[in-house]
C-alpha cells in the first residue's frame, strides 16, 4: 500500500500510467495480435527521442531561458558526417562514432561560447548555431545517400533478448544520466543552478563550468542519437532531425521535469516518449490521420503544463 502511495507521488508515474493505458487500448482493438510488434516498434522509435530528450532535460534543468534549439541540426550533421567517414565500411565504425562525438562536443562548446562571449540568451545562441550547423550538414551531404556499414545497420534494427538494441542503448544512457543527476556533485550543481543561479553562485558553485558541461552533454547526446538514427534509417536525410526540435522539449515537459528548472526527471522521459509514440500507433490503428494525432499531442502538452503550473502556484 505504502509503496503504491509513494509511487503515486512521483511526477513521472502519470506518463507511464498513460503509456500503459494507451498500450492496452491499442491491443484491445487489434485483439492482442499485435502486442509484441507494437511494443517493439514503440521501444525503437521512443529510444531516439529518449536520447535527445535526456540532453534537453539537462539544459532545461539549468533554469528559465535555457533551451537548446540546435539539437536537430546537431543530429543531422553528426549523422551525415559519420556516414561519410564510415562510407559503408564495417572497419570504420569506431572512427565514425568518434567523429560524431567530436562534432557534438564542438557544437556544445560553441553554443556556450556564444552565450558567454556575446552575452546573448541561450535561445538565440543555439538558434544561430543551428543555422550554421544545418548549412554545414547540407553542404557535406550534397544529396548523396551513403549506405551505413552493414554491421551497424543490422545492429540498429535488430533486437537483443526481444528488446531493440537502440532501446538498450537508450536505457544505458539514461541510467548514466540518472546516476549523474542523483549521485554526483555535478548533478547537485545543475539542480542548484536551476533553482537559483544567484544562490548557486553564492554557495560556491562554479556556475560557468557547470553550464558549459551541460551544453556539451546535450550536444553529445544529440550527436549520438543522430548517429544511431542515420544508421537505423539506412542513410542520413537532411530533415532527419527536424521532428526532434519540438519533440525533445515536449517529452521533457510531459515527463514531469520542472519547466522553471532545478528539478529533472529521467524516468519521466521514458514514460513520455513511450506515451507519445503509443498515441501515434493507437490513433493509427483506430484509423485517425496525422492531423488528429498532432492536435492530440498539442492538447496533451498544454494540459500537462496547465496542471503542473497550477500545482506550483499552490506550493508558493
Amino acid at each position, binding site marked *: 500500500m505504502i509503496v503504491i502511495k509513494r509511487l503515486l507521488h512521483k511526477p513521472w508515474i502519470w506518463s507511464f500510467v498513460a503509456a500503459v493505458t494507451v498500450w492496452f487500448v491499442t491491443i484491445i482493438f487489434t485483439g492482442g495480435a499485435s502486442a509484441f510488434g507494437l511494443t517493439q516498434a514503440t521501444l525503437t522509435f521512443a529510444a531516439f527521442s529518449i536520447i535527445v530528450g535526456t540532453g534537453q532535460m539537462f539544459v532545461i534543468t539549468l533554469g528559465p531561458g535555457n533551451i537548446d534549439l540546435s539539437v536537430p541540426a546537431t543530429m543531422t550533421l553528426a549523422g551525415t558526417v559519420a556516414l561519410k567517414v564510415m562510407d559503408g565500411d564495417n572497419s570504420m565504425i569506431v572512427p565514425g562514432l568518434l567523429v560524431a562525438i567530436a562534432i557534438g562536443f564542438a557544437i556544445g562548446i560553441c553554443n556556450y561560447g556564444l552565450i558567454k562571449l556575446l552575452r546573448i540568451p541561450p535561445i*538565440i545562441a543555439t538558434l544561430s548555431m543551428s543555422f550554421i550547423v544545418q*548549412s554545414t550538414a547540407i553542404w557535406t551531404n*550534397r544529396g548523396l545517400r551513403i549506405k551505413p556499414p552493414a554491421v551497424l545497420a543490422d545492429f540498429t534494427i535488430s533486437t537483443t533478448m526481444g528488446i531493440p538494441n537502440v532501446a538498450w542503448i537508450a536505457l544505458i544512457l539514461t541510467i548514466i544520466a540518472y546516476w549523474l543527476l542523483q549521485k554526483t556533485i555535478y548533478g547537485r550543481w545543475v539542480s542548484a543552478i536551476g533553482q537559483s543561479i544567484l544562490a548557486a553562485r553564492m554557495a560556491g558553485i562554479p556556475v560557468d563550468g557547470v553550464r558549459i558541461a551541460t551544453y556539451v552533454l546535450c550536444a553529445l547526446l544529440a550527436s549520438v542519437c543522430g548517429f544511431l538514427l542515420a544508421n537505423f534509417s539506412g542513410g542520413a536525410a537532411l530533415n532527419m532531425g527536424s521532428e526532434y526540435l*519540438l519533440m525533445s522539449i515536449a517529452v521533457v*515537459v510531459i515527463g514531469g521535469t520542472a519547466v522553471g528548472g532545478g528539478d529533472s526527471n529521467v524516468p519521466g522521459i521514458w514514460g513520455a516518449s513511450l506515451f507519445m509514440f503509443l498515441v501515434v500507433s493507437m490513433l493509427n490503428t483506430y484509423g485517425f490521420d496525422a492531423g488528429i494525432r498532432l*492536435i492530440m499531442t*498539442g492538447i496533451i502538452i*498544454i494540459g500537462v*503544463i496547465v496542471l503542473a*503550473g497550477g500545482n506550483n502556484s499552490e506550493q508558493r
Partner: protein
Amino acid sequence: MINWFTRDAARLLIPALSLTVLLLVIFYLQPRAMSYNGLNLLFNLAVPIALATIAQMLIMTVNDLDLSMGTFVSFVACVVATFLNTNPLLGVAILAASIVVYAALGVLIHVRNLPSIVVTLGMSFVWGGLAVLILPAPGGQSPVWLRAFMVSKPPLVPLAIIASILIAVVAHLLIMRSSLGVVLRGVGGNLRSVERAGWSIVRARATIYALAALFAILAGLALVGLATSADANIALRYTLLSIAGVILGGGEFVGGRVSPIGAVIGALTLTLAGSFLSFLRISPDWQIGAQGMILIVVLALRLLFNRLEKQRKSA
C-alpha cells in the same frame, strides 16, 4: 537636438548598415538587380517573413515567445488556399476564431502564470494538426484577388518595397507611437509599476496576442498570394526566422525593448542573406548558414558598440 547616440538608435543603426552593405555588394556584383524587377525578385519573399517577424515581435514585447509562429502561418496559409477561396465567409470566420484563440492563450498564460514557450509549443502541434487536416497534401489555390494583389506592379517602386515600408510604418505607429502601444511596452519593461498605475495586465496580454495573430494572418495571406498554393509545412521555418529577425533588428527577449522598423529590416536582411550567396557564386547550401553568421556578426557588433558607449559614458 535629438541625441542619436541612444542605445535604441544604435540598435537600429547596425542592422540598417548591414542591410545596406549587403545590398551594395549585390548591386556591385549584379547591376541588373538594381532594376524594378530585380528588386522585386530580391525582396518578394521578404513580405510574409516581415509580417511574421512583426507578429513575433509583438509577443516578445511582453517578454513572451511564440514557438508556434511557423505552424500558425502554415495553418493560415492552408485556410486561405482552401476555405477563403471556395467559401470566403467561412474562411473569414475561421481566421477570426483563430485571433480569439490567440487572445485566449494570452489570458491563459497570464492567469495561470505559465511559460509561454511551452504553451505555444503545444499550440504548434495543434496548428500543425489542423493544417494537415485541411490540406493533407500540398494543394489548394490562392484566391484570385489575393494573387492579383501580390503580383501587382505599382508604378516606380516595386510592391515588395512598398509593402515592407508600409508594414514597418503601421507597426511603428501602433506599438511605438500610440498611447496603447506605450502601455503594452510598459508591461514588458516594468510590469509592477504598470500594474501599480492601475492598468489591467490581463487585458494588455490578450490585446498583444490578438494583434500578433492578426499580423501572422497577414503573413499567411501574403505567402499564399506569392506561392499560389499552400501545404501544411509551407512556413515551418518562420518560427526560428521570425525570432532571428526580431533579435537582428535590435529587439530583446526581455524588457519590452523592441523595434518594429528594426524587425522589418531584420527580416529583409535574412531574406537577402540567401540571394547574396548566389551572387557570390557560393553554393546555396550555405544560405541558412549565412543567416546564422549575420545574426552572430550583428550581435557581436552590438556588444562592441555597447562597450564603446559605456566607455564613452564613464570617460
